[in-house]
């Protein structure tokens, strides 16, 4: 009973933090990037101001939009929000933990992506269609790579849920292995693609021909654009939390043990900041790829994912005999 109550409280803190901090993380990345480039950059809280401003602006509905124009942002945001509820942040053992099967997570990402692609095709103009077509192309490789990674995780942790995988990796003395190294590299490639960062896509880009995610939102404005932007912010914090929960699970709290919460919270905050700075440094150091180089980049991710499970098979074979 007490455990359930604690889990509920932990989940509520998780909800408050992950939904509250999502725009801040974007702010940190933007600021860090600007500083690394020698600019002052916008203040950390700029994304909140942008969202508030968009909420207050009149929404301009294109005359070629259909009845479904207003539904896609809701689907994208809700599916991303449900994903945010399932991914552990500062603590394992949230009440949503049993639902957090990795394959469900992949499906929810796909739902959000599908709704955004339809939003791009909605008004029937070239840039949205091109963005959606490119997103469809990238998603092929990210989904395949993610599924192969799920295999590696499930084989090591014997649990299909993100919560179980993270708990196993924290407590199970997994140690460093070649297989997990490959898996981390593949996961990072997938995360960069899914969150639409350089080298795959540029969130700060202004050239329509090179945009992917932003191109699909060109016809959206006002509060509907705010929903898409907020969903993108959520996606970034989800991916940083997901990667840190799987690959850097040390220090994550248990929901049943209230004394471990402060440590978990501080470490999660630190991991988010480190993740944001690492992302900013990587983005400054690399150039955006041409669209048709991206399948090669993601093909490498898929290959690394397959290699990570193959190494695991070889290791168990050698260990077993």
């Amino acid at each position: 009973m007490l455990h359930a109550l604690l889990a509920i409280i932990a989940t509520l803190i998780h909800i408050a933090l992950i939904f509250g901090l999502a725009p801040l993380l974007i702010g940190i990345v933007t600021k860090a990037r600007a500083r690394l480039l020698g600019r002052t950059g916008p203040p950390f809280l700029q994304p909140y101001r942008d969202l508030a401003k968009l909420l207050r602006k009149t929404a301009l509905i294109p005359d070629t939009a259909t009845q479904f124009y207003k539904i896609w942002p809701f689907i994208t945001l809700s599916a991303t929000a449900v994903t945010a509820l399932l991914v552990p942040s500062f603590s394992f053992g949230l009440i949503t933990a049993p639902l957090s099967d990795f394959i469900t997570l992949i499906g929810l990402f796909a739902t959000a992506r599908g709704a955004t692609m339809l939003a791009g095709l909605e008004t029937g103009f070239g840039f949205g269609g091109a963005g959606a077509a490119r997103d469809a192309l990238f998603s092929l490789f990210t989904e395949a790579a993610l599924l192969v990674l799920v295999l590696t995780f499930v084989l090591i942790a014997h649990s299909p849920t993100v919560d179980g995988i993270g708990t196993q990796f924290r407590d199970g003395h997994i140690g460093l292995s070649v297989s997990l190294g490959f898996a981390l590299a593949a996961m990072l490639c997938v995360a960069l693609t899914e969150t639409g960062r350089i080298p795959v896509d540029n969130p700060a880009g202004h050239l329509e021909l090179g945009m992917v995610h932003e191109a699909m939102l060109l016809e959206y404005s006002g509060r509907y654009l705010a929903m898409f932007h907020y969903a993108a912010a959520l996606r970034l914090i989800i991916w940083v939390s997901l990667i840190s929960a799987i690959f850097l699970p040390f220090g994550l709290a248990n929901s049943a043990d209230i004394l471990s919460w402060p440590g978990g919270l501080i470490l999660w905050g630190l991991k988010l900041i480190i993740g944001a700075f690492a992302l900013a440094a990587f983005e400054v150091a690399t150039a955006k790829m041409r669209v048709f180089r991206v399948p090669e980049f993601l093909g490498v991710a898929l290959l690394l994912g397959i290699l990570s499970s193959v190494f695991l098979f070889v290791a168990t074979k050698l260990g077993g005999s």
Partner: protein
Amino acid sequence: MVCYIRVVNQYLALSIGLPGHGLHLAYDPLALLFLAILTPQIIATALGPDRKSVAYWLFVAGMVLAVLAAEAFPLLLGFELMSAASWLLVLRGDRKPATLYAGVAMFSGACILPALFLPPGGIAFTLILLGAGAKAGLAPLHAWLPRAHPAPSAGVSALMSGGMVKVALYILIRYGFIVMGGAAQPWWGTALIIAGAASVLIGSLRAMLEVELKTILACSTVEHVGLIAVGLGIALRAKALGDPSLAALALQGALLCAIAHGLFKPLLFLGAGAVKHATSTTSLDWLGGLIRGMPKLGGLMLAGCFGMAALPLGPGFAPEFLLLHAVINAANTGEIISRIGFTALLAILGLAAALALGAAVRIIGIGFLGRPRSLRAAAAEEADRPVLFGMGLLAVLCVPVALFPGMILLFLNPVINQLIPDAEQPPLGYAPAPLALLLLLAAGASYAILKRYGTKAEREVHAFNGGFGKPPAWLPFGDPITQATGTGFAEPVQRALGRAILGPKTIDPGELYVLDPLRRLNVQFTRAAERVRRATIRQRLAFVFMALVLFLAALGFVQGT
């Protein structure tokens, strides 16, 4: 004619004809399951204009007879009746694929007929796999399906894609698991998995690249048949290797996939028929913006595409989830080669899932959203009420499969116990009902926040379109060619993946390596026959004389030894 009911092997049986010499029909859980899969689509398609045709009812009768057959003869009778009637229906739609279809139907009949009377074993299973696989559209014998299934009217297409392929898979299940279950070998499952994986890959890729709506749906059927075959193959292999819980998991996925596909695919085919009726084309490159004129049809098609894309909370996700977990479990143990194989299979399934999403987005986004690409698309009117009613029925039936797959799995328990006697069903790790609740909460919360903190102001303006100006008055929807077409939307995928798998000309490997050689062989045989027919009297006499000499020589040789 006598008709009586008796109990055979615990299940009720019905015999028609003389005692001991009649048609024996029986129903057991497996037959009932497939009857349950067939019923909604038969009702939904019978609401349309097809119900006036005799061939349609013969087709339905053939399917039902094949499923209810208790022995080889009625099974074959039903199967052939189904093939012949559907051939007539295809012929009525389009002459060219009808010949191809008749050839494939004869091939599968010719494979299944001897297999039914052979002793259980490898040869019999191979023949069943070839015959049922060809009928179901399993690679490499799938190339006929995307040609023949779109040819007849919408209702028949729906029934062929949703029902007929299931009957072929039913025969595969019946013989692979029950009749020949004792003699099962692991390689049977492996063969089925490989054929299934190839179908999944080719089917989903072609579904993404094709332009005709009905062809897209037929290619997606190839993909789903492949998914079901992968599940059946894993189950067959695990059963032969003595792992009943994995077999049960894979079988759950395969059967649930058959149920879900039997609901959303006929729905989509009926919708494609309505689109054809309204615009006289099904080519995505001539459609666009249909949802304005046909909002109800658009909503139903969206529901169907939601299932086809295997997204969470849709009917297609639970089977996909079970199948992926079955593959992960299968990769958990065994020889290193098979484990690497299952890893590759997982990558293929991931690729196919993303391609299915792309194909579904393409149907809705290009066909129903955006601006009209032709005047007919702009003037499309809502579909007829019976069609909408049939589609609505199928969509409503999708809801329990989508939201309560655990309950459907309970109904599947007897079937799984019948196919794998000592199986214990693993619990389902995917709970859509709480997920749906969370999703509703999230949507409600975002709506409330928008209402509380946002303005409600809205203004209709000309689309931004990268800064281009308003189109002239004589182009009410702007220039149609300035929006992405079906071909254009698929171009990146074609460039990155299509060329590698289908070649630069996008020719299906099943066509290139199976149908084309057969066609060439056909031409050669025809030429040879023609040469014999045109022979002069002297050549014919010489031929007869040579045959006589050879015969006598052979006779003498045999006598001599």
